[in-house]
């Protein structure tokens, strides 16, 4: 009997306080080179955690926050993330604000909302270098995928934030990112930069787009923005997604590029 399902393997590790799972599919899924690439992904993410974690007092971000070092003293990675946060602030009309993300401490730079998908995007380079394989890299609910030569998309389920036994939708994604942000993600609240208070109007925002990092930024920004995001997402060209409001209303969109 010939095998019909593509060869497949998965790895899961806890990094940055969340499960990171790597799924590979295709010829070579069990090769040693594949396993080494996956280990490199995990190693990169651990390194990013050491650099960016706000839970580690010795991280560059914490030292930067305390004023012990200046931005120019930081690594290229930290400076790159700083610049990306500035771009995100502009592109979201101020709704994603890494300088207004720490409760009661406006002005403090905290790039946590962008670092995870930034690190995942970089680390995925190890997987992109593998030929003949598709991969899905999941980091605590945000997912980056790429198909292999068979062009079979990955099937992504969108969780219902009110009832985790349900999915609001399933979506096939061939190459790109799926990011979901919610009011209670990771036990932290997303602040509305306009008020400094936790955003409460959107239970969950999912953005599907070609870039996981920007999908994540816009999903977070939509939650911060609140109910007015229903209109705002119409400007997210080349993305699809859904919003669930506090009253259970689900708004879906699919925008042309």
């Amino acid at each position, binding site marked *: *009997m010939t*095998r*019909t*399902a*593509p*060869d*497949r*393997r*998965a790895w*899961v590790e*806890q990094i940055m306080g*969340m*499960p990171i*799972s790597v*799924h590979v599919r295709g010829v070579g899924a069990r090769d040693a080179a594949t396993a080494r690439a996956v280990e490199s992904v995990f190693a990169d993410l651990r390194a990013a955690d050491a650099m960016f974690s706000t839970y580690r007092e010795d991280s560059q971000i914490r030292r930067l926050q305390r004023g012990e070092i200046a931005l120019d003293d930081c690594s290229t990675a930290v400076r790159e993330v700083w610049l990306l946060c500035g771009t995100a602030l502009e592109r979201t009309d101020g709704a994603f604000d890494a300088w207004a993300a720490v409760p009661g401490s406006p002005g403090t730079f905290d790039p946590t909302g962008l670092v995870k998908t930034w690190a995942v995007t970089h680390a995925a380079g190890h997987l992109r270098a593998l030929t003949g394989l598709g991969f*899905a890299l*999941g980091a*605590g*609910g*945000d*997912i980056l*995928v790429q198909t292999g030569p068979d062009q079979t998309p*990955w*099937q*992504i*389920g*969108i*969780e219902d*934030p009110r*009832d*985790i*036994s*349900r*999915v609001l*939708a*399933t979506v096939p994604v061939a190459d790109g990112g*799926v*990011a*979901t*942000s*919610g*009011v*209670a*993600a*990771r*036990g932290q609240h997303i602040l509305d930069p306009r008020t400094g208070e936790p955003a409460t109007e959107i239970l*969950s925002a*999912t953005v599907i787009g070609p870039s996981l990092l920007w999908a994540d930024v816009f999903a977070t920004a939509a939650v911060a923005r609140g109910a007015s995001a229903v209109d705002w997402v119409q400007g997210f060209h080349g993305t699809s997604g859904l919003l669930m409001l506090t009253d259970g209303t689900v708004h879906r969109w699919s925008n042309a590029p």
Partner: protein
Amino acid sequence: MRRIIVALGTTATGLVLLFSWPTSWNRPVAAGGQAAALGGAGTSQGTTATGASSSGSGATAPVTATVDGAVAQTPYGNVQVRLTVTDGNVTAAKAIAYPDRGGTDVQISNYAIPILSQEAVQAQSAKIDMVSGATFTSRGYIQSLQDALDQANL
């Protein structure tokens, strides 16, 4: 704060319901009729497949095995799922580690999510590979399910 308390209160119900997901996936095991052996509780690695027929699902007796998922850590405790795989299809799932009743076996119903079971006509294309969500508990939980399914493919 109130939201957190509510979330804690509903966690148990949500987790129980979530166990029913794999039954609606009906994802074939890649290695045809091969079965995987039981991994030890508390480990993140399943064991390799042990024998059984490789000649497909013809007239041979059904091959059934169980596979344990990795222990997923959540803020509320550890979660681990055990799948039963019969002739390459996931036929049952239950919790063998569970936040509110640590270590207690919790038998799970065969409730299937409608949207998924409808798509399960073509088992290959109906599977969900990953779940995107913002709920912390479910993240760890779903990872355990995915890990169990992937170990069924070892």
